[in-house]
């Protein structure tokens, strides 16, 4: 099993360690519910060093990123970040990812831990005809995410970056606790917060200092368990559950990352066809209308017919109810539609509700 450079620190904090995508990672420290609530109300620190980082450089870097992704990377100035995807020609997902614009000829792609090798092969495999070099830097990077309403308050004294001046989905170079790195105002929790990337070979002090300074303000270390409940409340996609190489970007309800006027890109013809013909199914958010918690892969029924299985499903610690995401026939996706989920051989009522399930106050 691979270990991040913070592995021993997780164990010393009492982290319950599990295997995740070949990594030994903490699933929880003090409990999923207290950790979840800390991020919603105070702050939480995540080790996300298992994520993958791929650097694309060269005179065709922009054209190349444009070809691989549906969002419009040409809109990015240096210092900006964009959520997008790696598309197959079928307009399904190789992965979802963040693109950091470093400069006009340099883009930094952050991909899921589960997909690093596949993504890198995919990206490098499509480089023919583009003047680019592609480098998998995943092993060199450590990454932590500081998330929650107090994230800026906790991080500001520890960095030379003016955080108040950094807008959402922007990044800059700087020092955090004396370590050189990149800091972006991004995250995967639905809260304000920052992600910090460093190539420092010994970044432990970054983790311990943020924990130490944040603790009096209510910061907790957060494991993968709460990371999953937080991202689901904010309706952020989990590759393998909500999106995959079997689901198209439109079916995943991610039309907002598709920018057709930008020019040709992988999957575009399929997207245009789906737009013209309409979708047969779409990802919808639901809550349980009867007692029970829907879990991934539970069978789903609409009008008596088995239609799919639960993509993501959990108990929402903030909303205190069972929620989830599921692909439903298009006619079943309007808010209020009732359907059934089989929980331990019992068909249990669920209904489509608006998403995101959680939106932080003050966010547009």
């Amino acid at each position, binding site marked *: 099993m691979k270990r991040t450079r913070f592995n021993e620190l997780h164990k010393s904090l009492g982290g319950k360690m599990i295997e995740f995508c070949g990594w030994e990672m903490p699933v929880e420290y003090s*409990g999923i519910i207290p950790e979840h609530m800390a991020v919603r109300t105070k702050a939480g620190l995540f080790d996300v060093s298992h994520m993958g980082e791929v650097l694309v450089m060269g005179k065709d870097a922009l054209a190349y990123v444009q070809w691989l992704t549906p969002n419009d990377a040409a809109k990015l100035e240096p210092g900006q970040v964009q959520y997008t995807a790696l598309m197959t020609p079928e307009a399904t997902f190789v992965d979802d990812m963040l693109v950091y614009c470093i400069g006009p000829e340099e883009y930094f792609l952050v991909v899921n831990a589960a997909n690093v090798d596949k993504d890198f092969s995919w990206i490098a495999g499509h480089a023919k005809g583009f003047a680019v070099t592609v480098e998998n830097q995943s092993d060199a990077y450590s990454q932590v995410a500081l998330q929650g309403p107090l994230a800026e308050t906790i991080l500001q004294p520890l960095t030379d970056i003016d955080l108040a001046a950094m807008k959402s989905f922007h990044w800059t170079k700087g020092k955090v606790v004396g370590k050189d790195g990149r800091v972006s105002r991004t995250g995967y929790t639905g809260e304000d917060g920052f992600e910090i990337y460093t190539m420092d070979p010994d970044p432990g002090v970054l983790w311990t200092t943020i924990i130490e300074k944040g603790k009096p303000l209510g910061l907790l270390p957060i494991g993968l*368990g709460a990371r999953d409940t937080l991202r689901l409340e904010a309706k952020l996609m989990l590759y393998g559950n909500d999106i995959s190489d079997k689901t198209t970007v439109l079916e995943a309800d991610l039309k907002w990352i598709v920018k057709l006027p930008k020019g040709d890109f992988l999957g575009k013809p399929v997207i245009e066809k789906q737009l013209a013909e309409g979708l047969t199914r779409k990802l919808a958010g639901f809550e349980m209308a009867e007692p*029970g918690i829907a*879990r991934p892969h539970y069978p789903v029924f609409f009008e008596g017919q088995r239609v799919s299985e639960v993509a993501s499903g959990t108990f929402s610690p903030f909303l205190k109810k*069972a929620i989830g995401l599921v692909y439903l026939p298009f006619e079943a996706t309007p808010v209020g539609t009732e359907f059934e989920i089989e929980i*331990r051989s019992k068909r249990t009522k669920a209904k489509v509700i608006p998403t995101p399930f959680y939106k932080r106050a003050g966010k547009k």
Partner: protein
Amino acid sequence: MYPNDFRYTKEHEWIKVEGDEALVGITDFAQHQLGDIIFVELPAVGKELAVRQPIGVVESVKSVSDVYAPVPGVVAAVNEELGQTADLLNKDPHGKGWIVRIKIKDKKDLDGLLSAGEYEKFLEGLEH
């Protein structure tokens, strides 16, 4: 920690005999392993239970676990309070967090279960 008048299973259930009936729940060790419990599915009163038959389901945020009958019997009552306050299993696993009351078929069935001391020794073995 583990009451002396209870018997235990290696699957971390406890049973407390009261006359012809017995209360059944999950141990403190089990609730710790599961984390914050948020939902408990209870059996129907009157249900006949064979040994090791599921008597309920305990769900935490991330996990779903069956609870089994330590001995054969019939469900005499269920802890209705768990419908609203499943976290009683975390807060008071050996008391208010009981799950079902069963009418025991034959008290001899209890003989194969662990004493408090044996259960504690079993747990020590798990931690090493």
